């Protein structure tokens, strides 16, 4: 396959969403579990903590579950998220969208954007631990399976994002 010379436009959101739904359905049918992302970060954190301070990690009630058999580095979500990075890179390359950039609003400087991005990531990391999932495992998977907590998380996340957006105009608009 030869990548496009110029970036191609994105797919129709309804078509892309339906494809995403088919991927999710396939995961449910084949393996009995849906998609996820934040769990891969948790198992990596548990695995690294265990490598540095095994006793400390084993005694940690949050990390302990990821250290149980088959171990933190054979976690299903870790392999799935590796696939996400691979699939994202391949898709971007094929569409001529693989390029170095720092995405930001017209008024935001790159260093500020990177710092706010890191802070936003850290806040999401905390929240995903507390909620036991994120947009993949809770919203998409739990949403399609009609989980109560998933729908509450989804509504609360939209409320939080809409509440914060006016304060972040300098970053994006």
């Amino acid at each position, binding site marked *: 396959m030869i990548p496009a010379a110029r970036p191609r436009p*994105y797919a129709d*959101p*309804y078509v*892309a*969403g*339906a494809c*995403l*739904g*088919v991927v*999710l359905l396939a995961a*449910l*049918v*084949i*393996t*009995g579990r849906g*998609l996820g992302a934040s769990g891969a970060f*948790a198992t990596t954190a548990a695995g690294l903590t265990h490598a540095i301070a095994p006793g400390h990690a084993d005694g940690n009630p*949050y990390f302990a579950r990821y250290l149980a058999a*088959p171990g933190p580095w*054979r976690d299903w979500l870790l392999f799935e998220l590796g*696939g996400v990075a*691979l*699939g*994202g890179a391949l*898709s*971007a390359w094929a569409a001529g969208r693989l390029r*170095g950039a*720092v*995405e930001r609003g017209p008024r935001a400087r790159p260093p500020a954007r990177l*710092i*706010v*991005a*890191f802070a936003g*990531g*850290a806040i*999401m*990391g*905390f*929240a*995903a*631990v*507390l909620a*036991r*999932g*994120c*947009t993949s495992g809770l919203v*998409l*998977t739990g949403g399609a399976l*009609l*989980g*109560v*907590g*998933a729908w509450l*998380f989804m509504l*609360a*996340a939209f409320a*939080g*994002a809409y509440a*914060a957006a006016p304060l972040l105009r300098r970053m*994006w608009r």
Partner: protein
Amino acid sequence: MTAPWIDDTGSAALAIAVGVGVAFGAALERAGLGSARKLVGQFYGTDFTVLKVMLSAIVTAMLGAFWLTQLGVLDLARVEVPETWLVPQLVGGAVFGVGMAMAGLCPGTSCVAAASGRGDGASVLLGIFAGVLATGLGFAPLRALYDSTPRGPLILPAWLGVPYGVVVLAIVALALVAFRVAERIEARP
């Protein structure tokens, strides 16, 4: 044999995990959700891609799971429904939303953004890891909140006391209304 077919953590399951991930990542990238600027358009009323993609995906998978169960192909009782923890998920959801508006990406899309060359995606990725690691290391004081209000694998039909099919129909209707509203707002001059 009734689906789901694989329920071990052996090498076959991990190979499937990579395959599912590749398809998931490609779908997110095609939709444009590896782009933080496109994603935050949702919260400024200029680009409703997030809502359209998310609800289309949920409706597709929900209808598929529902009909495959009706046809006897899928055994929903053996599919893992994410557990409900009312207060942790309401609080966590609101906090997560603030982080998402700052980052412009979520954990899954930050991987796609980083993998397609975006420095802000890599920064979000590192931030999530730092957040998860710090929260895990400092888990003790959070535990009371984390373990509060457990409801198990509770689903909307049981919670509301209405049949599964009615909830499915209601969510399809809700999505169609949301799509119509989103298209109208996007079409504004």
